[in-house]
């Protein structure tokens, strides 16, 4: 079964708050010193899901697409090291400043360019902007059925059974192929690449595709084609007030705490 996974490279979500900085004027996140960007964790899980599907079906390919600057190649290489077959890097200055819509547009063109596979997998959201829409938009653009926020994926013949995480439990759904899936963190940890695979991945060619390769005009993508406008980017400040509740015995302290919580309307 052939699978394509779309991955994104993001600033490491484990970056300590103290090291996270934005340039408010340019409305950009500043890269933190000494902390390399990583593949979005949900996307790594999406690659894991794809590899398991490939293993379960016994044949097929897992290809990776990523849209982003030069460094996005590392996210592709990481996926290749995990065991994916080919990588495609959508790289063009014209893509700069895009939004979920332009990204989905470029990705869908790339998928058609490579050939629509049996399954298309995304992470449930990119762990930087957390919008969680690209997968669904691609499904719409390609007119494919989709299931989002999945904790389990299983092959059953030609169709696919998935388990969705919903507010009050799980929802099991069966989809025909081809289809679009987005993977949630409940799916489980992605594999750690073997060193030999890392080295092989390092040597593998990644195909680069520009907007014109995909038949897209510069006006359709990037900032020019974006439908979302950013108005401001800033780091919220939060003030912490500490009140020590006095009391001679633990009981008194507890009573004081209950009162304080009632006053703050928390209880």
């Amino acid at each position, binding site marked *: 079964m052939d699978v394509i996974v779309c991955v994104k490279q993001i600033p490491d979500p484990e970056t300590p*708050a103290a090291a996270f900085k934005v340039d408010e004027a340019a409305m950009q996140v500043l890269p933190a010193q000494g902390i*390399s960007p990583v593949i979005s964790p949900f996307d790594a899980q999406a690659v894991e899901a794809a590899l398991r599907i490939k293993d379960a079906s016994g044949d097929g390919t897992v290809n990776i697409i990523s849209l982003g600057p030069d460094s996005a190649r590392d996210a592709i290489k990481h996926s290749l090291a995990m065991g994916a077959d080919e990588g495609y890097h959508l790289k063009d200055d014209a893509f700069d400043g895009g939004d979920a819509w332009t990204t989905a547009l470029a990705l869908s063109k790339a998928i058609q360019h490579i050939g629509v596979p049996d399954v298309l997998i995304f992470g449930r959201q990119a762990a930087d902007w957390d919008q969680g829409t690209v997968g669904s938009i691609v499904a719409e653009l390609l007119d494919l059925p989709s299931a989002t926020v999945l904790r389990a994926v299983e092959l059953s013949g030609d169709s696919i059974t998935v388990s969705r995480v919903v507010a009050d439990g799980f929802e099991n759904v069966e989809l025909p192929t081809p289809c679009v899936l987005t993977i949630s963190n409940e799916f489980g940890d992605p594999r*750690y*690449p*073997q*060193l030999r695979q890392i080295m092989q991945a390092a040597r593998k060619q990644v195909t680069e595709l520009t907007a014109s390769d995909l038949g897209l005009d510069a006006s359709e993508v990037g900032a020019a084609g974006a439908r979302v406008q950013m108005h401001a980017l800033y780091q919220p400040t939060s003030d912490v007030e500490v009140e020590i509740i006095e009391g001679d015995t633990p009981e008194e302290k507890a009573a004081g705490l209950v009162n304080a919580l009632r006053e703050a309307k928390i209880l």
Partner: protein
Amino acid sequence: MTRLAESRRRSGATSTGKRVSALAIPAWLPLGGILLVSGAETVRVTGAHRELFFNIDHFWVLYMLLPFVIGIVVYGLVRRSRVWRLGKPIVSGQITRESLRSAFDDLPLRLGRLIKGGGGTERVLRDPYSGVMHLCIMSSMIVLFLVTALLAIDDYIPVDILVGPRYLGYSLVADIFGLVGIIGVGMAIAHRWVRPRTAWLPTWEDWLILGGLGALLITGFLVEGLRIHTSEIDVNPEWSYWSPVGYVVALMFSGVRVSAALDIHQVFWWIHMVGALSWITLLGYSKLNHLILAPANAFLKRTSAPGKLDMIPNIEEQEHFGVSQLEHFSMKQLFELDVCVRCGRCTDNCPADIAGQPLSPMHIIQDLKSYATAVGERKVANLVQGNDLNFGLDDEAPMVGSVVRDESLWACRTCGACVEACPVFIEHVPTIVDMRRSLVMEEARMPDTVQGTLETLERQGHPWRGTPYTRDSWMEGIEDRVPEWTGEQDYLYFVGCTGAFVDRAQEITRSVVSLLREADVSFGVIKGMESCNGDPARRLGHEYLYQILAEGLIELFNETGVNDEQKTVITHCPHCFNTFLNEYPDMGAKFQVIHHTQLLEQLVNQGRLVPSSEVPEQTITYHDSCYLGRHNDIFEAPRRILEQVPNVTLIEMPRNREQGLCCGAGGGNMWMEEQGKSRVNEVRVEEAVATGAEAACTACPFCIQMFDSGIGTVQLDVEDDDKLKVLDVAELLQAAAVSESD
């Protein structure tokens, strides 16, 4: 070289070793006395002698057997050596001049080990009971061998040496050492009977070697007694007093007719002689081979610091990473397996085993040895028959994962207590880490915690996943008091990841800075740009990641002018210290390295730091960090600092210095979940608490964290004020020597 002399390895001599071997001396004093007095007495007797083959015909059969015996022993060893030769030559690739050179470097050190550790059984003597036991058996065998050889020589040379007083003295010595041997064998048997440990229940080997030796010694005395009974006691009774044991045996036979006694004598003589020759063949087929192999292994032990792990050169071109098959080991590692005598000392000293965790270094070596016997021999056979090395071995259980279990490999702290304890100089740590390397790099099979740590190292350049801090958080508020490294100063203070990202360790970092400022040391810190030196990755088995991190850091050191013979890097973490000192030279490092306790001791001695202000009166016990102490021989510097702080009384835990017990954090276990009955840090905290000390001092930020968390559980019910306090040596010294609050 400003690396202090102390940081060089001594030849392996240890204070305990000396203490116990000295202890063994009194045991020999009475013997010496007897020998002296008897020596004087023998002079009065003349003409005493004995016939070599008294009462024996066809003794030439013995001489015929001798070459066979030697042949059988040599065959056994040569056969075994084919398994050793499955391994890789000591360096890599072919046996090159380079690999030979590495096996023979530092000859004086190697020869010293051969003589003291091999011949002198230095490490065996550390334990009084087994030391005396082993000394008894060994001295008895050596003396009896010489005695027998002398008798044979005497018989064949034209002049008679063994006559008169010389013969009597000779006779007495032989008797005494025969008895000493019996005592030794008795002690060994009692040891196995009285203190049997499930970990090393005696096997056929033990009984064959010990039982055989005991039987030889006893039949020897029987033969002697019968000879005395039949030919000496009536004719020259005063001669027979010089064979006291034989004399007693003779008396026991006094009722037996001489003709019958002569027959019995013949029977026992042949049993004794053929038995002795058969027993000698065990040299080629059992752990008795340690007579030959142990001194050889003492010679072959690496001369580098024990904490050093060897580099995988040209890692990108390797066909396999680490060890998952016998043939991936080096020849020396395979050889070593056969040297092990199953004494259990390594396991007795292993922190993981002490805490009831699933690791016993002895079993790792023994299980590998059995595997080398079963599978190694088949591999050899495949080679001989021109088959593929692994032909027909597909169904064998994998060596890593089944013969040696993953959880055992992960439980190792790389603390080196096993290596230090092993009387035959086996090096367990490189063998364990080699198998980890295969788990991590070849199979990517590891506990989640290890994976998380490695990923954090890859991405963030430090192992502290989830830390809220940045590299420079520790200097918040004191930025202007922390001099930036300019390339002009003498010392670079390398803060390291723990000193930067862990709150408790940040306090140590600030103490060190304040002390260096107080003493006016010319130093600087590379702000914001440091990255991990790679130690955690290397100990966890990810050699490739280690090399990437180390290359990155060396590049930074090159760019900033640190990598220069004139510059010295200060570390307060023993792990950084060990890596920089012992492992970075392989990566092209030229700079000098000093641990903060070494530098602080110098500063106190030079009067540049004066620990004069009164700290509260307290008793302190010092915990040796493995990577500072056992791995780099720095035991005294931190203790001498503590001794100079007024009001401080230093006391020791029973396990200290070379025998110090790891805190549990080493080998990457700082970032793992412990499995087993208890946690290593709790065991160590209990030991510290038992000394009655108010505080424990150490010189390692990992040890401090491990102690703190151990105290949390061990002293759960103790009032906060009465809990054991844990301090870095620098923090105590700061309290005593720095007046301004920096």
